[in-house]
């Protein structure tokens, strides 16, 4: 079994290295001299020469990549042009908000998507199923930021129940009540993803219910609810769990927009601002961090999926 784990981890590592090459090349692909890309347009000639030598930009590109990668492994992702501070610390500042947002959103997605998907599957073809499936498809067709803006309009502007923007840190103020700042944003983010998980759960359950062993289970005379619980659910959920990694990636993407709509001080909004400010080191750093996170999560989900399925244990 461990050889399987190592093989998968190895494959992920190779993909990571290849992705890092692309990310490294990012600075060089942006139009303009990389020096000015890194320092900003206002750099003086002395700074330029100093940094060019210090960063080894006069060296062969492969060496540059290795230096960059080496530094990245120790946490040195360069210097932000806008903040004049290490990129990693800039990113870390936004981490709390984004991680909290992502976690709360995932909770909504699972709590809403899976049970409703199950209900729809068990009442297949009925008006309940058709309505639920229709709503799910509708939710998956709605732009996230539109939902967000509407939630702000209704709950913040008209009703005044919830704040419309910002997020004071829980760590600093210690007030868990600040979570209410994340309620609307997390619901916004959760909507389309819950819809997708709902459809996936439903489809997976229907697929499993057509399997031969479910027919055998029914033949035993077990009641329908038991058939669902012991035979259909376990096998159907395996497929759904493996989609969580993909859902997380989608969350990261859409969080960019949601954080912008709700003015949350997270990494997503940081990316957009950095693009508009041409703060390339930060953009590069964020992409690297997120890719690492994404690959790690996919690896964990993949491994746990395999470990849950006894068929694979004895390979």
């Amino acid at each position, binding site marked *: 079994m461990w050889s399987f784990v190592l093989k998968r981890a190895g494959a992920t590592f*190779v*993909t*990571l290295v*290849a*992705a890092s090459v*692309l990310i490294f090349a*990012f600075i060089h*692909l*942006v*139009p303009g001299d990389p020096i000015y890309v890194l320092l900003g347009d206002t750099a003086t000639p002395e700074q330029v020469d100093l940094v060019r030598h210090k960063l080894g930009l006069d060296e062969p590109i492969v060496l540059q990549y290795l230096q960059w990668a080496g530094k990245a492994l120790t946490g040195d992702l360069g210097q932000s042009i806008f903040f004049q501070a290490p990129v990693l610390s800039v990113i870390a500042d936004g981490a709390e908000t984004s991680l909290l947002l992502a976690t709360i959103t995932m909770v909504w997605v699972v709590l809403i998507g899976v049970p409703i998907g199950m209900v729809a599957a068990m009442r297949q073809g009925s008006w309940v199923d058709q309505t639920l499936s*229709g709503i799910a*498809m*509708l939710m*998956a*067709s*709605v*732009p*996230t*930021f*539109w939902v967000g*803006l*509407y939630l*702000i*309009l209704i709950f913040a*502007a008209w009703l005044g129940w919830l704040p419309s923007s910002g997020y004071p840190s829980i760590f600093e103020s210690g007030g868990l009540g600040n979570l209410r700042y994340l309620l609307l944003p997390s619901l916004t983010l959760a909507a389309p993803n819950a819809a997708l998980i709902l459809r996936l759960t439903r489809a997976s359950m229907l697929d499993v219910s057509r399997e031969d062993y479910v027919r055998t289970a029914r033949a035993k005379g077990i009641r329908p609810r038991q058939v669902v619980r012991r035979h259909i659910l376990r096998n159907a959920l395996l497929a759904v769990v493996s989609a969580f990694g993909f859902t997380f*990636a*989608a969350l*990261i*993407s*859409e969080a*960019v*927009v949601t954080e*912008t709509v709700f003015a949350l001080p997270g990494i997503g909004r940081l*990316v*957009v601002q950095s*693009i*508009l400010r041409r703060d*390339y080191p930060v*953009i590069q750093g964020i*992409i690297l961090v*997120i*890719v690492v996170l*994404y*690959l790690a999560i996919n690896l964990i989900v993949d491994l746990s999926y395999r470990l849950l399925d006894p068929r694979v244990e004895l390979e």
Partner: protein
Amino acid sequence: MTRDRLHSWLAPFLGRPIALLGLAILVGMILAAIFASVLSPYDPRAIDPIIRLSPPNAAHWFGTDQFGRDTLSRVIYSSRMALLIGVGVVSFALLTGVPIGVFSALFPRLGHVLMRMVDVLMSFPALLLALGLIVVLGQSVANAIIAIGAVYLTTTTRITYGLTLRLRAETYVEAARSMGSGTAWVVVKHVLPNLISPLLVQASFVFAFAQLSAASLDFLGLGAPPDIPSWGNMLAESRTFITRAPWLLFFPGMMIVLTAFSLNLVGDALRDRLDPRFQEMFASRRRR
């Protein structure tokens, strides 16, 4: 196309009124895009500060924005951008993804390398990849198409690869190759025709997601330039005024939803038509 085949394509729609509605909406949108100049009551760029931010009324069915521009006309003209983005992204994804997928499946050694490269691309979350490409390429409509297209190129390649692998193992393909047909001939005659249906389904969904992605990019200010009317741009501009002028939020957003929803419905209906045929095709392999 024989009458039978035409009927089999329409069948999933005829049985399901809501899918038919989706198809009708799409046709309507295409017509609106083509005949925008005829259908719009006003010039979408015409400014009239006196009537700025007026709610929907008899003269302006969808109200006006902060510059006094007619919302209805802008919404109609934006359908052109939506159509352009959709067609552009789907074309890009298909024209790059299909050849890569097909050749990777037919030439395994090259295929392994190419698929790994696709894996690398897929390790970037969708919007981030698009954003990164926009930064490198610069902001323009064409670059937005390429950026979003790159995201869906990966899924299209994967799907084509999987399908071609399965088709390759089908006995009739083996038979053709054993008879000495050249690979290119096999591809054209046997593989491509069988890819049309599943790719058509895929195209519908990609078209839908492209709308949402493009709207997000526009909203962030990184998509179509602000002087070109698009639903995403309209929403971005409406942000400051949503409390005073909620209709500016409603109509462009509704159009995005309608378009994406219709495409999803159409894609679903096409997929249901496709499914039994596919099961039939693979069922013959399962029976010993």
